[in-house]
């Protein structure tokens, strides 16, 4: 359990202890009437004063908490025990049992809870004995559903099937496998229901329909103190405070439990893009290239983990650069850095990115906004998750247009239809009115491309644009990109792990491994005569036309926190020498446009 959870857990434990120990405490009798001292103030015997019948307020407060808590916990306990049983039965014993146990609960949920409690209590009569079954009934459906959902998810798992195949009895399977798995959610549900039951109990007691006087309950005390509110407001405030604090503690425990059992709920707090504008090394922009990434180093949070280290690359106008590497090589992050769109938690540690001479990482957000989608655009890997599910395709393209051009809604829509036609979508007028989920994967990627070229960018970054597509569609998308770049003279950065894809389209290639550039050069040269063993291995691992089977690269990309000393690729390299594992190899320059990060490149060439 996390550190934060101890505070609410401790408060609830304290509360429970107080409730349990109440009879042992040296307190006056909470129901002893002393009319002579009604509404008396603070005295040595009565530290919180006396109520309208002269009863000791502190003693009633402690006992009232005890009663309220007891009713809530007993009712929730019954609901929990019954609910777990019904949920297990419903989950394991087939359709009829499911109908009888799980679906029947919907009827209970159909009543507003307070209304149901009110009805039953008024019909049966007030008192804790009526209250407990009502509250139990009210919270039953919650437990049934939690356990039923747990059973469904566990039932499908292999080991349960295996146990059944081995002949284990159903009851045994239930208790051994399912219960430990639903324990967390049931615990969360318990604290939730207990807090809610306490609220309902005190509400009903307040109305005079719950705990019967003279025995104290917090709700009852608040109800009684209302009549003497003018003379003795403290009598009203004390039970209000006690009830509020008790429920606050239960709620806080519930939140903490939920955090503990549902890790999805606590994403690490990313600092976002604001942190980008840290002190960065500057430098004069080189004239000429559309994009120049210079010695870019990224780090994750404050840890010494660097997913991108000293990466440099340049893209000339109209040129296509392929950035290739396995996943984890830092190629996608480099692409995002070029847009100044790094995800939260990842920061620039050094280096610079120039777009047509402008230092992207030093620009403020409004300036970046004018560039993004305008001069520089990006096509992401997964078009389904990148398109907003609730807006029409045409509206999403129009939005990109109107973010950079002064257009009426109608003019933007017309342009959007034109763009859809340009990227090869049939019947574009109708398709513009479609939602993303109504299109095929290939069409969605065409829409992404339409959005990217909407404002005639000089640079388009395509991050694995064909990975999510099947082979024929892949080829079509590639063809479209090749056409567009010729037609509009767009420089293209094509990020991929798929070498054959690159061979046809790229002018130049930059190969990345473990966050570093290991080789770059003109595409034809790199493919014909790779200078780095990793490039050679990548080429050998790609599927080939000539029928020879591809050769996989042994081993895995090193972990971010655990890079080998020396050359990062050495552990997987078939050509490594002892020296490779000692010194980190520098990026050797053969020509201004040809580099390799291999120590032995002269011998191996």
């Amino acid at each position, binding site marked *: 359990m996390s550190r934060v959870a101890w505070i609410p857990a401790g408060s609830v434990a304290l509360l429970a202890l107080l409730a349990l120990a109440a009879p042992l405490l040296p307190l006056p009798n909470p129901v002893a009437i002393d009319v002579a001292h009604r509404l008396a103030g603070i005295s040595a015997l009565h530290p919180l004063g006396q109520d309208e019948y002269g009863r000791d307020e502190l003693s009633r407060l402690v006992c009232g908490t005890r009663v309220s808590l007891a009713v809530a916990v007993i009712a929730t306990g019954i609901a929990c025990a019954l609910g777990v049983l019904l949920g297990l039965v419903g989950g394991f014993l087939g359709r009829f049992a499911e109908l009888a146990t799980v679906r029947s609960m919907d009827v209970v949920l*159909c009543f*507003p809870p*307070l209304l149901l409690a*009110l009805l039953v209590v008024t019909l049966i009569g007030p008192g804790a004995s009526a209250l407990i079954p009502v509250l139990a009934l009210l919270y039953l459906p919650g437990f049934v559903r939690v356990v039923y959902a747990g059973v469904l998810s566990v039932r499908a798992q292999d080991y349960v099937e295996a146990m059944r195949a081995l002949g284990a009895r159903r009851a045994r399977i239930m208790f051994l496998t399912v219960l430990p798995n639903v324990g967390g959610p049931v615990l969360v549900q318990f604290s939730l229901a207990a807090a809610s039951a306490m609220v309902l109990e005190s509400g009903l007691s307040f109305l005079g329909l719950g705990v019967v006087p003279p025995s104290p309950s917090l709700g009852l005390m608040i109800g009684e103190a209302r009549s003497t509110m003018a003379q003795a407001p403290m009598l009203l405030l004390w039970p209000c405070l006690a009830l509020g604090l008790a429920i606050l503690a239960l709620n806080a425990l519930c939140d903490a439990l939920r955090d503990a059992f549902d890790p999805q709920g606590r994403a690490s707090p990313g600092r976002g893009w604001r942190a980008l504008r840290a002190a960065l090394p500057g430098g004069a922009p080189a004239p000429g290239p559309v994009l120049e990434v210079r010695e870019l180093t990224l780090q994750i949070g404050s840890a010494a983990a660097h997913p991108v280290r000293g990466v440099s690359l340049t893209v000339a106008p109209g040129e296509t650069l392929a950035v290739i590497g396995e996943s984890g090589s830092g190629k996608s992050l480099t692409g995002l850095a070029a847009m100044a769109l790094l995800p939260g938690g990842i920061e620039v540690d050094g280096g610079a990115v120039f777009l047509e001479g402008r230092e992207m990482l030093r620009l403020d*957000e409004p300036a970046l906004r004018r560039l*993004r989608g305008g001069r520089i655009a990006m096509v*992401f890997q997964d078009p389904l998750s990148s398109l907003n599910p609730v*807006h029409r395709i045409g509206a999403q393209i129009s*939005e990109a247009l109107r973010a950079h051009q002064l257009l009426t809604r109608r003019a933007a829509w017309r342009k959007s239809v034109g763009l859809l036609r340009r990227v090869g979508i049939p019947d574009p007028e109708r398709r513009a009115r479609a939602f993303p989920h109504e299109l095929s994967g290939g069409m969605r990627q065409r829409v*992404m491309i339409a959005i990217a070229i909407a404002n005639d960018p000089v640079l388009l970054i395509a991050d694995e644009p064909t990975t999510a597509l099947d082979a024929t569609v892949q080829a079509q998308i590639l063809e479209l990109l090749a056409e567009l770049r010729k037609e509009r003279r767009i420089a293209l950065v094509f990020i991929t792990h798929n070498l054959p894809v690159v061979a046809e389209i790229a002018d130049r290639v930059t190969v990345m491994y473990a966050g570093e550039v290991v080789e770059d050069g003109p595409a034809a040269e790199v493919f014909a005569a790779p200078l780095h063993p990793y490039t050679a291995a990548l080429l050998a691992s790609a599927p080939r036309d000539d029928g020879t089977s591809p050769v996989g690269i042994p081993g895995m990309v090193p972990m971010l926190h655990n890079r080998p000393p020396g050359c990062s690729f050495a552990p997987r390299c078939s050509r490594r020498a002892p020296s490779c594992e000692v010194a980190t190899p520098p990026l050797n320059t053969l020509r201004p446009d040809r580099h390799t990060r291999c120590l032995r490149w002269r011998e191996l060439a």
Partner: protein
Amino acid sequence: MAWLLHRVVVAILLVWVVASIVFLAIRLVPGDPATLLLSQGGMAPDPGAVAALRAQLGLDQPVWLQYLSVLKAALHGNLGASLEDGTPVVSAILQRLPRTLELIGAAALIAILAALPAGLAAATRRGGGFDRIASLLAAIALAIPVFVAGTLMVLVFAQWLRWVPAGGYVPLAQDPLRHLRLLAMPALTIALGLSAVTFRMTRAAALEVAQKDYIRMARAKGVAPPRILLHHVLRNALMPVVTVLGLQLGSLLGGTVLVEYVFNWPGLSGLLVDAVNARDYPEVEGIVLVISVLFVALNLLMDILYAVLDPRVRQR
């Protein structure tokens, strides 16, 4: 449209089941309404008079016959007459229901206006000063039961500060200003818890949506932050918020009892409590029927709202 038809049929069935359960439950519970009606001042009533009244009210017939006749009348919009004073149940309900709906509506309006922007603001500056303060306030608001909040409000604003009357009701047509002054405290009391839940849900949903690829995409398009917040984040975060709000409003349909009691607001729940205490069968059945119809209708409305908000739902 098929799904809508399906939902409507299910909704009607649910209402029928609920009405039948209430009909049966109220008759299975001990306590004869005729005896109760005639026993004034603790004296045991004359058995002959009780039998006559039972015959007059149709209580001497077999339960299934009573059930059929009640069902038939209800289908014709006739919920019977109150056993206590003989007035039609429908008119009593029509008098009280708008007051309860007004209370819920005002509270919902306050909650939406306050919590939606606050939730978004807290999410955009997560962990910032506003987020911390608003989250803490929401946690406190959630821990205060409505009747406690109501009672404390009466103590502070009516008793001590004397800004507003402690409670009561005046029709809007009679004195609009006083009507609103009387509405303020009960509406705020309900809005307190409602806002806390709405705030939490908005904040959580907005944080989750902000992680989505399409938000990154919108930024890559160069869309301005306010537009991203409204058109992309809020628009998608609205669905879970609507779900929670719908559930909350549903539970308020019968859940205003305490607030109506604290502030002396003569709404539908007060009528129900009186009717249950008097064993006024037709009135209890009528009110519960109306509430469950409203409850089911609200759920149906939520389903339709999902379809409006999320085009993916429309396909199913």
